[in-house]
């Protein structure tokens, strides 16, 4: 493939697809960040929760044929599992070193992998949806592109606004800042942490089904969610708005890499995220927007 063959139309579609993918990444990445802000931990089980939600959506969609039922079931499963992990795993581990939480959520990852195998096997399928193509100037937009775009942006904006503008958001930020201090002011810290995890489950479930609409339901969704974690770290774990940038950087990098690097390194597109993450963490160890931690002894 020669480089000069790349014209305006290819470029604009490439960038559009990259940004779209990036927005979906940032939706799942926001789930990680919400959990990190709630109780300073990463939920490594998210990739399997995403997969579980997607397979639930597939099952309900094939049973009822309606996408909105699938959406609801995916979100319910994701929120329920997320809250269960908070109650069962994260809460007993409060105050323990991060390795305990990493190990325990990876244990949940491992266990949920089994659950996913029971629920969905390793089936590959598309959700029932009629796809039309529209032309907007140089862009070609499909129905599923529009659905994912219109589904993701309001939720991303909504969560950021919820965090910045409402008293509930202020309480969540207070808990993220200093849980003991927040408790001293009479905030229901435990319930707020649970709410943070539930919110993370919500965006994760939504991200899962939108990814499934955009691509397909397959075991690959697990890796999308791991790449979303990379997006979350590129943005900085405690930044909420930054995930949009982190996601879009990754989405674009993925599209560009699979376009230009693929002849030399087949299949690098899906792994470029990790190379990028390592490089960025070398320069900015706390990501672009993450607050640097000052350690005291």
């Amino acid at each position, binding site marked *: 493939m020669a480089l000069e063959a790349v014209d305006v139309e290819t470029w604009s579609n490439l960038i559009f697809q990259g940004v779209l993918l990036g927005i979906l990444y940032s939706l799942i990445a926001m789930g990680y960040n919400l959990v*990190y802000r709630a109780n300073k*931990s*990463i939920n*490594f089980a998210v990739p399997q929760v995403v997969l579980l939600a997607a397979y639930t959506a597939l099952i309900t969609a094939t049973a009822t044929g309606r996408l909105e039922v699938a959406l609801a079931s995916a979100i319910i499963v994701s929120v329920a599992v997320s809250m269960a992990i908070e109650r069962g*795993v994260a809460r*007993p*581990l409060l105050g*323990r070193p*991060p*390795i*305990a939480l*990493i*190990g*325990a*959520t*990876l*244990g*949940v*990852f*491992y*266990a*949920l*992998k*089994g*659950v996913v*195998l*029971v629920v969905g*096997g390793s089936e590959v399928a598309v959700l029932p949806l009629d796809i039309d193509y529209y032309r907007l100037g140089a862009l070609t937009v499909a129905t599923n592109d529009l659905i994912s775009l219109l589904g993701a942006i309001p939720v991303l904006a909504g969560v950021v606004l919820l965090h910045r503008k409402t008293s509930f958001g202020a309480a969540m930020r207070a808990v993220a800042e200093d849980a003991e201090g927040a408790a001293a002011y009479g905030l229901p810290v435990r319930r707020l942490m649970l709410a943070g995890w539930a919110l993370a489950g919500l965006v994760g479930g939504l991200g899962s089904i939108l990814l499934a609409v955009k691509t397909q339901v397959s075991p690959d969704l697990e*890796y999308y969610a*791991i790449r979303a*974690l*990379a997006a979350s*770290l590129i943005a900085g*774990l405690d930044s909420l708005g930054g995930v949009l940038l982190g996601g879009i950087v990754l989405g674009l990098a993925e599209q560009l890499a699979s376009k230009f690097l693929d002849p030399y*390194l*087949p*299949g*690098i597109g899906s*792994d470029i*995220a*990790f*190379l990028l*993450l*390592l490089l960025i*963490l*070398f320069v900015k*160890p*706390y990501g672009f927007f993450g607050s640097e931690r000052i*350690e*005291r*002894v």
Partner: protein
Amino acid sequence: MPAGVFKETYEGDMAFIRYPIHKAALVLAVIAGLSAPLLLDTYYLNLAITALIFWVAVIGLNITVGLAGQISLAQAALMGVGAYTVAFAALKLGVNVVLALPLAGITAMIIGLVLSLPSFKLKEYYLAMASLAAQLLLEYAFSRIDPDQYTPIPPEAKRLASIDLNEPEALYYFTFIVAALMALAAGNIARSSYGRAMKAVRDNDVAASIVGVNVPLTKAIAFGIGGFYAGIAGGLYAIYSVGIGWEAFTLVNSIELLGMVLIGGPGRVVWGSLLGVLVLRTGWTLLESNLVPILAAMGFSAFASAIKYIVLGTLITVVIILEPEGLIAVLRRVKEYFRLWPYSY
């Protein structure tokens, strides 16, 4: 009679064998290890060989994670580096696998040293994710060098002088000796100045740097040693296998290895690692061979492949929540109960 074992000298406190239970465990382990081929048939002998191989890998990870506190999710990929080094040295260059084994360790150690670079700046979750990224990048590299997911190990390369390592008994003794040497070295690393520097870095790296520990060097050594152990384990795995494919060195395997460290006893390098392997790998294989036919008979054959993940994942999570120091702490409590019996206070 003293109510316990008390150390009166610094040397006594730093000795390799400190308590009678260490001596007993060592003697029992050596006897059990040496007599295993006489007692076990080929199936169980192969199980013992894999247990020894994974013991080496988990010891390495336990040094990185348990001693130095540096989270690594790339141990399985480092094992893969060692395994492919042996496989390609034997297949392409015709090198004897025993000669290629140290090479496997060194190659994986170099990659491990590269993996230590993020740890100079990153901690905790960021470090975990950096190693996860490295794991997935190495998986990509494996998929490029081994697209068929199968690299045969030529049986004629599996020789040590006149001993044929294709024989299960010979391979068992070879693996046992290598693993025992590695475990001995690990026990000594843990009590050396490097090991104590690692523990200081684990407990508080800022404080450690203030008392004069070279923190980046200590982290690099921890990752390097962890990589070396993983490489040797991978090399042994290649010697044990007819052929290798990279599906044995994926993220899920890394999670298993980390689970073995955390379940067995993080920081308890030799015996904790052994316990982790015996529970998560050997114990499960034994249980599974009995469980799966029962499940199939009950009509749940769909669960057969999934049950491993569900049971082991739950076990890892529950043990981490209930027993921060791993199952070896449970053993210690059992031992203390009997030592103090009948006056348990």
